[in-house]
Each structure stands twice: as structure tokens, then as C-alpha cells.
């Protein structure tokens, strides 16, 4: 399947049919409507009012109410992907019912939000003032701007506790015309009032200054409390605070009641968003008083059935015709693969969608990704966890097709890792001695090479020739992928009609690489004659020398360019070496798992009591393997992907296509059951 061929079409019709047509198109998501607003000279009139403002309001209220929602069980909301699952009729009915009262509910929720914010601000303000006044709770006088009288001068404030004694001695010892009233202690400070005869004013001020006295000035914050005692003011504050808390609690109860409408609001939000897209789309097209016309892209194979449908549904009053794209206009890319293969589309998309001259690489990278991932993660335990978790969600969850495809990719990765684990004997990093006997190969005897310890195991990557074998396997798979890549380039260029280039570049290289493979293989396999392949390799190299210089204009430079072109072989060598990462990552999973088991064993044997030892071992094993699982999973995914993007795609794939974005109902909250 791969890339779906798209056709550009022009749809024209009478305005009377516009609304129904748009509704159907929006529902089916068949067309991508091209923006031709720059050609529009006529006036656009708005049919229905679906302002962005309404949508923003609903969105805002949903965000506000969400924390007050009585939460559905975690598993439930995970299984539905956080969406509302219902039939389209139900949703429609609910929108109709709810639409009437939605205005009131939105308004009430918005007011409640405002009030909650206001209460909070007021509460914070009172709290701040209360904290400021708190040290003066036992201050016997009322709050005044200034406590000085005709003959005396007063200071109210604090010094650090450690200064208290010196202060008393210095001031009281100086004269009996000075009085100190200490009324509070706190935060390492003492709070007091000093009253002194006016004649002592400069002396007291000087002494206080030396003690780093912090004078308190009520006129800064408490002008409204003049004449009242701090105790009374504090009492009033407390009362006010309790009232606020009560108001808040009452309001929150009401908000909780409002939150019951959240699901209705969500449905409304989706419907309003659809209304908005439907309304916005008309700005992209041509509309006159009686007619409308728009350009669109659609899958070529649906064209016939769609035009028949148009003919029947609108009695010939809406027409469709195939048109050529404008100059410089590139068709969007619509990639569609069979189920299973489609799961690998996100990997292609991660790099880039196929460009105009590309083939869709998804189907070709899928088997390689599966194998590479399996060998990188290569642990039956981890693979089973991945498989079972994704299978659980696949079977019980209600997700969109895209989400299910993504889950299926995880499921396949899990299967791959399980197979890889069997192949390489990885079971949570266990050594044969630690593993339960049903996993073991009955023919295995410790110390004898040649028989692998686990059932179904092909390579023991840590023993004897194992690592080299594994490395060879990784390189072999790499060679296979490189050859596929070069061959796909040949296929692609043939398909695009560049026959000369297709034969001279990819095919010649393919031949050379294949001959090198056979030449190397003939060193190991008896029935292949090495001399023959040596000759063939040289011939292939000769062909490349001839072909690689073909674009040089000057005759003398042609053979020179040809020989230089042969140097590209170094690129293939470095690509091939890159595949050794499969082996390194495969080993890493097993060795780190082994290290975790080892650590658990050592730590538990150090514990004073065997029971504690068991507990410690379990903790270390669970934690260690979770860490190893997460890191290996990330590594396996990322590096298997990289091998596709750089080594594989480098041979035949450019990317850079624009995704086909049909005019369709985007469902943010809803999920329609059929």
C-alpha cells in the first residue's frame, strides 16, 4: 500500500447545498481543502456564529473545573485514553440538552473562579497583616501614629534577643527618665517600647541606633486601625479569616456541583470546535451569492465513488472534476499501510514523511526494526513485561486506531525482545546456576563448550566464541539492511523513470557489495570458489570506475572521478561497523541485569538476619531491574531507530513530505463507539 496516490480536485456547486455537503465532508474526513483565499475577491459572509471566544470560554471553564471532578478510577481513564466513549447519537442529544443551560453554567463557573481568586488574595493579605501585628498582641496601648507627648518621646520596635541585656543596662542605667516596656518576644527578637523625657531624646536615639534597633511604624500598614488595641485588631482579623475560609468552602462545594457538568462541557467543547473549523474553512474557498467552489486533495481511488455520491446526493447540482496541481504545488503525503505495518509509521514520521520522489519506507524498515530491537533488548523477562502490558491495554482499552497502532508497536517490540532473549539466553540477567531448571537445556553441562545453557538458545554471548558470533550476526544483519537500502534506491529510481542513474549508481553498488559479501563468505563456506568471487568483485569495481565518472564533462576526468567514486566504499564500511551497536546493547542488557542480581546477592548476605537479607534482595532486584528495563528499552528503541534513519534511509530516502491533513472532526475529548 504505502503511499496513497492523491488527486487534486475542484468542487463547485450551488450555495443551497453547501451546508449539507460540508457536514458530510467533515464527518468523513475524505478531503483536504486547499487554501485558495488569495484568489478570493468576493466577500465572505459568516453563516453561523461559532466564535473562537466561546471555545476559549469553554476550555477555560473545563480547566478550572477539572481539579474538582470526582475522579474516575485510574484504570478506567487509562483504558479509555481519557476520552468519553459514547455513540454519536448520544453525544448529539446531550449537546442539545445541555446547550440551553450551558450559558448559565459557564457564567456561574467563571464567577466562582473569580471569587475564589479574590478570597485567596484577601486571605493572603489578612494573613500578612496578622503576622506583622502578631508581636504586638500584648502591647497595652492602642495603635497610634505617634506615642510622644509634650514632654516625652516614644519608640516602638525590636532588637535581637542577644542585645536585650545590654540595651536595658545602657538605657535604664543612664537615667530614671527612661522607661522600657517589653511586651513580646519572638523570631529571635524582643519587642518593646521606650519612653523617655524629651531631654534624653538624642541619647536614646543614639543608643538604639547602635543596638540596630528596628523601629516599627504603624502608619505604614495600619492607619485604618488607629485607636484600636492590637489585640482587638488581631481578633477582628481572625474572625475575618474564618469567614473567608467558610465562604471559600461553601463556594468550593458549589463548584464541585458544577463539575458534574464537566463531561457535558467536554462534548460541547468538541462540537463547538467542529463548528469553528466548519466556519473557518469557508475562508479558504470561493463563495458568491449563489455558488461555491473549492480545490482539494483526495485519495485517487475514492474519486469515482465520491463523484457518484455527489451526483446522487445533490441531483447533479454539485460537480467535481480532476485538476492539475498549480505550478510549484506539491501533493501532500498520505501514508497508509496494512495493520501491523502501520504500527511502524510513527518511526517513519519521526524522521520525515516521504517526499514527492520517495517510496514509503515503513514496510521495509519494519522487519529490521523488529529484529534489531529484539536483539538490543534481548531479555525474555523484559520482553514478556512489555508484551503483557501492551496486550492488556490493546484488549481492554478503547483507543483510536492511531493509539492502538502505537500500542501494537510496543506489543511487537515486546515479542521481539522475548524472541531475542530466547535466542541469546537472557532471563532477567540470570546465570544458568541461578535460573530455574525448566529454562535450562537438559544437555548442558557446565564447563563444556558447544552446548548452550538455556533452552532454545543459539548464541551464548559471554562465553568463548559467543561475542564474535554475535558481532558477526549484527554485521550480517547490517549488511542485509544496507543491501536492501541500495536495492530500494534502485527500485525507487526505476519507478521515477531515472533508468540510467538507477543502473549506474544503486545497481552497480549493489552488485559490488553482493560480490564482496560472497567473496568474504567463500572464505568460510567450502562450496563457494573464492577465486571466482575475487574476479567478480574486481569486475564490479571496474564497472563502478566506468559508471561513477559519467557526469564529468571533461573526458580526461572521467576515469579519475570513477576511481574517486570507488572511495565511497569507506562510507559503506563505516555504516556496517555502526551495526555493531546491536551486539553492544544486547550484551549490556544482560550484563547489567547480571550486575543487579549480583549486587542483590552480596547485599543480602551482608545482612544480620536472613529475613532482612531477603527483603533487601527483593528491593535491590526490583529497583535494579526497573532501572535496567527503562534504560535498555530507551536504548533499544533509540538505537534501532537510528540504524533506520542514518544507515538505512541514507541509501534511498530523503523525506520532507507534507502530511495530508483532511478536513475532519478532531476529537479532543470524544471517542465515538460504532
Amino acid at each position, binding site marked *: 500500500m504505502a503511499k496513497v496516490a492523491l488527486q487534486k480536485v475542484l468542487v463547485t456547486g450551488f450555495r443551497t447545498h453547501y451546508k449539507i455537503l460540508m457536514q458530510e465532508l467533515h464527518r468523513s474526513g475524505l478531503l483536504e481543502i486547499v487554501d485558495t483565499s488569495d484568489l478570493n475577491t468576493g466577500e465572505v459572509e459568516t453563516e453561523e456564529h461559532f466564535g473562537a471566544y466561546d471555545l476559549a470560554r469553554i476550555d477555560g471553564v473545563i480547566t478550572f473545573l477539572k481539579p474538582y471532578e470526582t475522579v474516575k478510577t485510574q484504570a478506567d481513564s487509562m483504558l479509555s485514553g481519557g476520552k468519553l466513549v459514547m455513540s454519536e447519537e448520544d453525544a448529539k442529544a446531550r449537546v442539545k440538552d445541555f446547550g440551553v443551560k450551558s450559558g448559565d453554567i459557564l457564567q456561574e463557573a467563571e464567577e466562582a473562579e473569580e471569587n475564589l481568586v479574590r478570597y485567596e488574595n484577601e486571605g493572603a493579605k489578612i494573613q500578612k497583616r496578622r503576622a506583622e501585628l502578631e508581636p504586638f498582641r500584648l502591647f497595652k496601648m492602642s495603635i497610634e501614629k505617634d506615642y510622644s507627648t509634650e514632654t516625652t518621646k516614644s519608640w516602638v520596635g525590636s532588637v535581637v534577643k542577644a542585645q536585650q541585656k545590654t540595651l536595658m543596662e545602657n538605657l535604664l542605667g543612664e537615667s530614671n527618665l527612661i522607661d522600657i516596656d517589653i511586651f513580646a518576644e519572638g523570631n529571635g527578637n524582643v519587642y518593646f517600647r521606650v519612653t523617655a523625657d524629651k531631654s534624653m531624646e538624642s541619647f536614646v536615639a543614639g543608643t538604639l541606633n547602635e543596638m540596630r534597633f528596628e523601629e516599627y511604624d504603624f502608619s505604614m500598614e495600619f492607619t485604618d486601625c488607629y485607636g484600636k488595641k492590637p489585640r482587638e485588631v488581631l481578633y477582628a482579623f481572625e474572625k475575618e479569616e474564618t469567614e473567608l475560609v467558610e465562604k471559600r468552602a461553601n463556594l468550593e462545594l458549589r463548584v464541585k456541583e458544577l463539575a458534574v457538568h464537566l463531561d457535558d462541557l467536554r462534548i460541547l467543547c468538541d462540537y463547538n470546535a467542529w463548528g469553528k473549523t466548519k466556519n473557518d474553512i469557508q475562508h479558504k474557498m470561493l463563495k458568491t451569492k449563489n455558488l461555491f467552489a473549492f480545490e482539494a486533495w483526495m485519495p485517487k481511488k475514492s474519486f469515482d465513488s465520491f463523484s457518484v455520491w455527489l451526483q446522487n446526493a445533490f441531483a447533479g447540482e454539485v460537480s467535481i472534476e480532476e485538476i492539475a496541481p498549480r505550478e510549484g504545488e506539491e501533493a501532500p503525503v498520505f501514508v497508509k499501510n496494512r495493520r501491523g505495518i502501520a504500527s511502524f509509521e510513527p518511526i517513519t514520521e519521526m*524522521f520525515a514523511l516521504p517526499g514527492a520522489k520517495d517510496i514509503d519506507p515503513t514496510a521495509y524498515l519494519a522487519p529490521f526494526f523488529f529484529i534489531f530491537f529484539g536483539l538490543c533488548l534481548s531479555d525474555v523477562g523484559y520482553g514478556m513485561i512489555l508484551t503483557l502490558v501492551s496486550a492488556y491495554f490493546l484488549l481492554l482499552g478503547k483507543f483510536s486506531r492511531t493509539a492502538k497502532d502505537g500500542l501494537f508497536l510496543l506489543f511487537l517490540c515486546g515479542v521481539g525482545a522475548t524472541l531475542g532473549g530466547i535466542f541469546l539466553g537472557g532471563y532477567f540477567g540470570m546465570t544458568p546456576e541461578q535460573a530455574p531448571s525448566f529454562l535450562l537445556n537438559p544437555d548442558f553441562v557446565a564447563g563444556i563448550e558447544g552446548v548452550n545453557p538455556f533452552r532454545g538458545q543459539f548464541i551464548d554471548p559471554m562465553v568463548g566464541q559467543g561475542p564474535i558470533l554475535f558481532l558477526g550476526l549484527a554485521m550480517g544483519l547490517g549488511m542485509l539492511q544496507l543491501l536492501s537500502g541500495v536495492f530500494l534506491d534502485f527500485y525507487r529510481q526505476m519507478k521515477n523513470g531515472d533508468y540510467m542513474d538507477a543502473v549506474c549508481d544503486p545497481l552497480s553498488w549493489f552488485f559490488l557489495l553482493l560480490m564482496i559479501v560472497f567473496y568474504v563468505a567463500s572464505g568460510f563456506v567450502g562450496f563457494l570458489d573464492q577465486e571466482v568471487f575475487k574476479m567478480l568483485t574486481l569486475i564490479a569495481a571496474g564497472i563502478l570506475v566506468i559508471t561513477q565518472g559519467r557526469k564529468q564533462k571533461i573526458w580526461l576526468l572521467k576515469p579519475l572521478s570513477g576511481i574517486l567514486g570507488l572511495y565511497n566504499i569507506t562510507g559503506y564500511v563505516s555504516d556496517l561497523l555502526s551495526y555493531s*551497536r546491536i551486539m*553492544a546493547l544486547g*550484551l*549490556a542488557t544482560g550484563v547489567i541485569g547480571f550486575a543487579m542480581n*549480583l549486587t542483590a546477592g552480596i547485599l543480602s548476605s551482608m545482612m544480620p538476619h536472613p529475613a532482612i537479607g531477603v527483603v533487601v534482595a527483593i528491593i535491590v532486584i526490583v529497583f535494579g531491574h526497573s532501572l535496567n528495563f527503562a534504560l535498555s528499552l530507551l536504548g533499544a528503541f533509540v*538505537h534501532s531507530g537510528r540504524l533506520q534513519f542514518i544507515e538505512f534511509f541514507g541509501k534511498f530516502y530523503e523525506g520532507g513530505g507534507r502530511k495530508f491533513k483532511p478536513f475532519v472532526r478532531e476529537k479532543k475529548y470524544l471517542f465515538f463507539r460504532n
Partner: protein
Amino acid sequence: MLESGIVLSIIGAVIAAALAGIGSGLGVYMAGSKAAGVLAEKPDLFGKLLVITALPGSQGVYGLLIAILTLAKIGLFSGGLEVPVEAGYQILWAGILMGIAGLASGLLQGRVAAAGIGAVGKDGSVAGKAIVLSVIIETYAIFGLLVALLVVNSIQL
């Protein structure tokens, strides 16, 4: 001291784990602090940023891997084996190789990851590409790991 195979091997293991760990630490530090900055503006990107931040962390794991493998090889966990001086030097060099490869690539991968995080902060859809760019550097840590693995594994004790 440098005539004892066991000591040489342990030095090798320590160098592998320590240098590669430093490389990863610095790399994750750079990526992580950048990610924290982006998160303040766009908390939704946490998942993507976490993955990119974790990428330079693998060098430390490779270093640990070589260290553990070395220690297991010389039988440190099971009472110790006779390690000839030649084998000790072999392991030491493997450790130095892993350490340097991990240090340099972890550090530099951190820079690429941090730059990628900046790009993701502007446009969340480039996360995949930012990951790929960052992974290219890791190749050299993996090559280091590969050679070190082969060297350590080839020793027969």
C-alpha cells in the same frame, strides 16, 4: 603495585566506571538544566524532555558494565583468581579506553542534547529528530564499549 595483575585490573575497572560516569554526569547535567528551563514555560513537554535528558546517561552505564565485567572476570566476587600482569594491563587499557570514550562522548552528547532541548522547547514536534541527532554521538561510546568488551572477554583466566 603495577606488577600485580589484580591491582591493574581494579584500576582499569575504576577508570572505566569513573570517567564514563563523569562524562554522563556532565552530559545529563547540561541537558537536565536546559530541560528544567524549558519546563518552566512548557510543562507538557516533560515526557519528551526526559527522554532527551536521559540519552547522555548511557555512557555511565557502559562504564559500569565494563567495570562489573572486569571485576567478575578477575573473580573479585568469588574469592579472586591469579591474574597475570599481562592480563592486568590488558584490562587496564580496556578500562582506559572505555573511560575516555565515555567521558568525551557523554560530555559532548550532553551539549547536543541541550541544544536539541532548546529546539524542542520552540517546537515539540522535532523531538524525534533531536533524539536522533543526540544519538549520533553515542556511536563512539558504543564503539569504545565494543572494543573494551572484546578485549576483556578475550582474556582467559
